[in-house]
């Protein structure tokens, strides 16, 4: 078992606290089946004069929250992806989550350094909505633990700088953005799915997206299959853990070529 990054510095009154869904991500990404897939996907050519065929993968997590998943992947890049030269970045609509993630990644790096182990190269966190500001075709590995709980409506996105002092209502709204998924819990996930063909790298793009049973994962899989033979989808790892009332699974969506 790879160690879980420390998140004791995260203000949980306004940033999503790591829970079953986050831990399912850690287990799945570090499972043998996913390590094999990822290492195959991002294999480096044997030592040679050029790395043109397999440059540093760009890894983006959307909705980092505490940063536990991104920090885990960043710290254990060599173990999971088979290489340490990955570039990592996080995105969140919550400024406090962006800050918390930067710190969680930093703590993870220090823990690796202390054991003389490697880690990736972290570019930073961006305050933003999904991937609309990322240059098309750049993301090699995208991770998304969405707001998947079915709710009657979606909370509005923050449209101005978060204040440094927040009220209880501000905090509740920030937290609700981390779980409230609207109709079928799929409103945000559907927007992310639609952006995949644009944002993912044409040669080796791959995404991991978590769903709960209410999101109707089989329907989501059928939707991706309808994109044609250039795309593939599978339930990743050994998922299907029961976490309370939710039955969670993580889909791996990739360009089949």
């Amino acid at each position: 078992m790879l160690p879980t990054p420390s998140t004791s510095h995260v203000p949980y009154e306004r940033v999503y606290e790591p829970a079953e869904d986050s831990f399912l991500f850690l287990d799945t990404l570090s499972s043998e089946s996913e390590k094999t897939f990822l290492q195959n996907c991002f294999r480096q050519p044997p030592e040679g004069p050029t790395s043109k065929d397999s440059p540093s993968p760009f890894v983006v997590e959307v909705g980092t929250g505490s940063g536990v998943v991104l920090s885990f992947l960043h710290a254990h890049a060599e173990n999971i992806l088979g290489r340490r030269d990955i570039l990592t970045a996080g995105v969140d609509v919550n400024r406090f989550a962006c800050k918390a993630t930067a710190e969680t990644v930093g703590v993870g790096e220090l823990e690796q350094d202390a054991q003389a182990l490697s880690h990736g190269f972290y570019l930073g966190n961006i305050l933003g909505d999904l991937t609309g500001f990322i240059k098309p075709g750049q993301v090699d590995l995208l991770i998304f633990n969405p707001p998947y709980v079915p709710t009657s409506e979606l909370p509005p996105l923050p449209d101005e700088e978060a204040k440094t002092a927040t009220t209880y209502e501000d905090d509740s709204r920030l937290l609700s953005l981390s779980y409230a998924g609207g109709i079928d819990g799929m409103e945000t996930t559907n927007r992310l799915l639609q952006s995949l063909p644009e944002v993912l790298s044409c040669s080796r793009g791959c995404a991991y997206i978590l769903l709960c049973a209410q999101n109707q994962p089989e329907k989501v899989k059928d939707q991706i299959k309808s994109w044609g033979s250039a795309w593939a989808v599978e339930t990743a790892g050994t998922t299907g853990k029961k976490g309370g009332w939710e039955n969670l699974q993580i889909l791996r969506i990739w360009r089949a070529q």
Partner: protein
Amino acid sequence: MKLLTLNFLTCAVKACKSSSASFPLHPKECELVSDTIAPNPKLIYNILPRVDWNALVVTASELGFPSLPPAAPTQEELEKDENMMSELHTLLLETSVSEGMLVCGNCGHEYRVKEGIANFLLPNHLV
């Protein structure tokens, strides 16, 4: 936010997607910070093939770095050119943007960078 991030960012406004002027974003009144990072030539070699070199040249020049050659150096060239290696190390790995603005060359929208975090949330009328 590492300066290298600018190589991956474009304007979030939908209407700007089709305009080449929306990439790279232009730094304005930016404060830079530099972290000392141990030399890592292998990382530089592996990053370079995926860097949009023309965009990096623009970013570096707008931030007042020594001008870069018009084409990306090859690994063979870098192995022989310590100065260029050290310049790229500073630019790609050590330099971060901590405060300032990133401006779209097409629509002029200014994305604020605060405490190293760029804000790409759009005001409602631009969504």
